[in-house]
């Protein structure tokens, strides 16, 4: 057993060298090459596979990856489980769609307003529930998810159950956020949004906020005893998450140009978001992306091959998958890989450890 007294005698050199280490090993050359190659591949992809269907699939994958990543920030990093995240998607979609439909306000501004509204809603739900244990929040998000859908289904102003058909506009495509004849701009825009979300996660991981998020996730009481204002930081996580989710909704609105409550607020969307993040690996940067990349094609396939009942068959699979992952591999695909790396690192530390 290491003895505190004798440790300090040799402390200074050991301490100094420990301090000289970087917190995280800098990205290896292999890693950097991987990112660069991936970046180039993603940018080149739509030119290599130059037909609408591959573009569409990738767009959908990116959009879901964005959604899953937004949920990941709140649930994976900060440990607050939202079961009604679709609410923010819908708010983003409707604020973009309605403001353009009724007032010809540029969808970009509509999107911004949607983000603000989503953040406000996040605060409204979060402040009362974040002081309490996790289930209170989860239940509140379930109620919100359902409640918002009910409200929009009956709200005449925004078209009630029929929703909104956006007018087709061909001039000034960038300004009116509508592109006809090619999906390429949509591809790059959603890719940019996703990149933004990933940069946010990447920065969080290397900042005080990220540390606090993870501390809150693991032991909120202990975090509190160390000076972390738990409710405040949970609210940050929720706001960031809601904002990103609503950006996805705004994008969706402009991509399909028709929205209605059943499409943008359904529980199945909230479920999918949870599944993708959890399966890929909650709390990791790549987890939600992998989750989306795996599940979107599966979803498309089941839709093609199982037609009418496809809707429930894939939900059955999703439900079962969530349960199985939670039992056997709660850290998800990427999480499992990371744990193996961490163990390897630990072994390296141990072998350099002279005393027990």
């Amino acid at each position, binding site marked *: 057993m290491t003895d505190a007294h004798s440790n300090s005698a040799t402390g200074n050199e050991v301490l100094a060298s420990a301090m000289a280490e970087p917190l995280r090993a800098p990205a290896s050359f292999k890693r950097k090459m991987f990112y660069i190659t991936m970046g180039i591949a993603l940018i080149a992809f739509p030119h290599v596979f130059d037909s609408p269907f591959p573009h569409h699939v990738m767009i959908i994958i990116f959009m879901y990856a964005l959604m899953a990543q937004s949920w990941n920030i709140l649930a994976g990093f900060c440990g607050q489980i939202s079961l009604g995240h679709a609410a923010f998607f819908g708010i983003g979609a409707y604020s973009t769609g309605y403001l353009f439909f009724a007032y010809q306000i540029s969808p970009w501004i509509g999107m911004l307003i949607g983000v603000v509204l989503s953040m406000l809603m996040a605060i409204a739900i979060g402040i009362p529930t974040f002081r309490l244990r996790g289930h209170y929040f989860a239940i509140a998000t379930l109620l919100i998810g359902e409640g918002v859908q009910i409200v929009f289904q009956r709200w005449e102003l925004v078209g009630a159950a029929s929703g909104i058909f956006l007018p087709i506009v061909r001039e000034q495509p960038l300004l009116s956020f509508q592109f006809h004849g090619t999906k390429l701009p949509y591809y790059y825009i959603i890719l940019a949004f996703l990149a933004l979300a990933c940069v946010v996660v990447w920065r969080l991981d290397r900042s005080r906020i990220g540390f606090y998020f993870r501390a809150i996730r693991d032991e909120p009481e202990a975090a509190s005893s160390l000076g972390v204002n738990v409710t405040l930081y949970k609210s940050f996580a929720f706001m960031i998450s809601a904002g990103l989710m609503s950006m996805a909704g705004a994008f969706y609105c402009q991509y399909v140009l028709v929205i209605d409550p059943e499409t943008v607020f359904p529980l199945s969307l909230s*479920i999918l978001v949870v599944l993708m993040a959890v399966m890929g690996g909650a709390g990791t940067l790549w987890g939600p992306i992998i989750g989306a990349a795996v599940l979107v094609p599966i979803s498309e396939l089941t839709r093609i091959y199982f037609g009418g*009942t496809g809707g429930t068959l894939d939900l059955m699979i999703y*439900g079962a998958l969530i349960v199985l992952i939670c*039992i056997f591999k709660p850290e998800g695909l990427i999480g499992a890989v990371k744990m193996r790396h961490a163990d390897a690192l630990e072994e390296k530390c141990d072998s350099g450890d002279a005393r027990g």
Partner: protein
Amino acid sequence: MTWEIVVQAIISGLLMGLVYALIAAGLSLIFGLMEIVNFAHGEFMMISMFAAFWLWALFGLDPIYSVPLCAALLFFMGVATHYGIIRHILGASMLAQICATFGLAVFLRALAQFLWTPDFRSIADPMVAGRVDLAGVFLGLPQIVASVGCLIAFGFLYLFITRTETGLALQATAQDRDAAELMGIPTERMFALGWGIGAACVGVAGVFLSTFYYVFPEVGLPFALLAYVAVAMGGFGSILGSLVAGILIGLVESIGGLLIDPSYKLLIVFGLYLVIVVFRPKGLFGRY
């Protein structure tokens, strides 16, 4: 808005409230034991409702007779859920715990839709049918029977928990698992028992509900949401609290339906939830 309509709303709210109370009691029992919210609770009820429906449709068995059968079926489902799923996530993160029962709910809902289509079914001619006229106030007989039935079931539950040795062992496990284990109580089996009873409760409520409510795959969710609010209001872990809260919610929902568009009832309930959470998160009788 006549006097009769108001009284009608109050009484029918009370009656429904007893059904909610039984649903909430099952949820509360499970949570009290192991601090896990069963997000599949509504789906358990839905399965029970379908069981009652098919027993009636295929074998002509009246729902009243189905009550013990469905209770037993749901009991086994609860126990199976514990041994199959819950046992493995007891020590896991909150993410795993919440998502596991949530995933189960998704699976059951989709399974029901896959097997039985999203169509609405109803039991056309239950033994108990018709209305009763009490001084100008009309009450459906099935609703009355349902609430009486749920109240009786609740009574059994309460007596079991407080008067029988097993029930006391259950309480002990809920209060302090380690101490209970040291005293020789098989806590693992207590957990399974809790799940079984909790599921059976919601199963009984479901059968009674099927005598006057549509049966369809999505039926579980709105009732489950009400149950969560009831449990929060009554206090997580308090059976008695579920009774009081269930009745209160039934009343609020019913009277609220008079004042505003009935389809917004969920919003009233949600508002109620926020009020509870802000002012008295422990609920009326809760420990958490």
